């Protein structure tokens, strides 16, 4: 089974003390190899509490020379002209192996509302760019519902707020919006993967670990021995995210 980790974080955190930090992309690759993770979507700590522009650039520098990593860029309202303009964005993403965006309004100082983000949401809908959102951390489900009501074609990869069993929050999003995908790093519920597959199909679930904050092995072993078909496991482990990345219309 091939594992594509949709949620790897690394870098140097300025405002918290990681007991086992993974500070650079070389260490990420070493750890992935040791654990049998072949591909990953990666972000840096510096994108959170550091700076948007420099953080995005650091990720781009890291993934550019690799064959198995794809980067995530932070998106902020375009009115301040700090990140590439919407009409330049797809070309820049393609040139830098960027395969998703993330929205972190609480850290980056803007409201999560469709109006300040309108050009980005239009572009993401048109080009099928996945947007990563972590529930909690300043984002509540209702804000996401409002955006998805206005932009139902958005591809959203969301993860749960915490490891507390979250089906009551997760299932409505998966059922109401066909392009919402659930990334499993925070989903440890016993028997939960089996039940979610019955509920919405394996096509809506994405393997992610949350490394470097968490170990690879927990979610890997959970998925490996989930009581679902091998085909479904493979979809969750890698095929779903590969399909999403291949679906990005960089040249549109």
């Amino acid at each position, binding site marked *: 089974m091939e594992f594509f980790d949709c949620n790897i974080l690394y870098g140097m955190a300025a405002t918290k003390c*990681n*007991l086992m930090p993974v500070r650079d992309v070389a260490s990420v690759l070493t750890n992935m190899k040791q654990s049998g993770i072949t591909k990953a979507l990666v972000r840096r700590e510096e994108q959170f509490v550091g700076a948007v522009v420099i953080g995005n650039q650091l990720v781009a520098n890291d993934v550019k020379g690799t064959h198995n990593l794809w980067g995530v860029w932070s998106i902020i309202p375009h009115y301040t002209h700090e990140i590439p303009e919407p009409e330049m964005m797809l070309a820049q993403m393609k040139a830098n192996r960027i395969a998703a965006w993330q929205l972190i309004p609480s850290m980056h100082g803007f409201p999560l509302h469709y109006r300040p983000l309108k050009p980005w949401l239009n572009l993401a809908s048109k080009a099928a760019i996945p947007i990563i959102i972590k529930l909690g951390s300043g984002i509540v489900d209702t804000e996401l519902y409002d955006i998805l009501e206005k932009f139902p074609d958005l591809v959203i990869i969301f993860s749960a707020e915490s490891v507390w069993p979250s089906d*009551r929050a997760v299932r409505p999003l998966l059922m109401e919006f066909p392009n919402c995908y659930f990334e499993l790093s925070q989903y*440890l519920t016993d028997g939960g993967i089996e039940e979610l597959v019955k509920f919405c199909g394996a096509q809506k679930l994405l393997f992610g670990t949350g490394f470097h*904050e968490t170990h690879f092995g927990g979610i890997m*072993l959970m998925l*490996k021995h989930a009581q679902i078909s091998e085909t479904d496991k493979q979809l969750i482990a890698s095929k779903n995210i590969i399909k999403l990345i291949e679906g990005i219309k960089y040249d549109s």
Partner: protein
Amino acid sequence: MIRNDSQLAKTFWQYGRDETCPIIDFHGHMGEFRCCFLPRSTPETMLKTMEQCNLQLLLFCGTDSLMMPCLRQQNDIDAVRKYPDRFKAYFALNANALDEKADMALFTKNRDVFVGIKMLPDYFKRPINDCKYQPFYEYANDQQLLFLCHTWDNPKSPYNGPDQAEEFVQKYPNITFIAGHSFHNNWSEAVRLCNTYPNLYLELTAVVDERGPLEMLLEKCGSEKILFGTDLPWFDTHHGIGTILSTDMSDDDRRNIFYRNGQKLLAKYPWFKNIWPKKFSTSE
């Protein structure tokens, strides 16, 4: 594969279980809880998970026993009586709803069910050393029972932090105090208490969600006072196993955590020798 240098990792990866490595989980629950959907929370569905992992014995306290004292812990008693080889319960103690006479009778009358006491001081807003608990502690101390206590210290807890636990273990040296969650986030105090008090053990629920804390506990305390726990049915047992297989330690350390430390603690219970495979008791 999670790691190539571990025979246990190879076997668990391939089969999901290892016949040479039974597991004892010291921190389980059972039943419905107000804020979340738990797909496998009945004894029968939990047994399904336990079979998949070779989890031989779960020590638990039902969420309804903890949060609905009106039920008188009957669901836990029924589950243990139905599956005495696979489940043992902790007696839920809650000073907010304690009826000393009736609760003591319930506790002592069902000693085949209860291995000790369980408490959630932060949730109940009653400290570990609340005077209402004293008769139960004296009984547990006399009987040398276990006490699984929720311990969390982030932010600093006035109910179940290191200070309260230290006062307790000094006062009741015959009770095995199992620090559920290992004083989460206050790892240095967890280390100090573990190394100071022979009757204090560290338990891993929520500890292994993060890289680093277990590695630190192993480095400073060794593996012989660390107990496996998962909060089953909240969290998948394979997740807990996978994180321990991912953590840098020897397979001997892993066996200590998965079952050897637990079997030493439980050997004093008359029922244990009847349910625990002889090959593990005699060969260790």
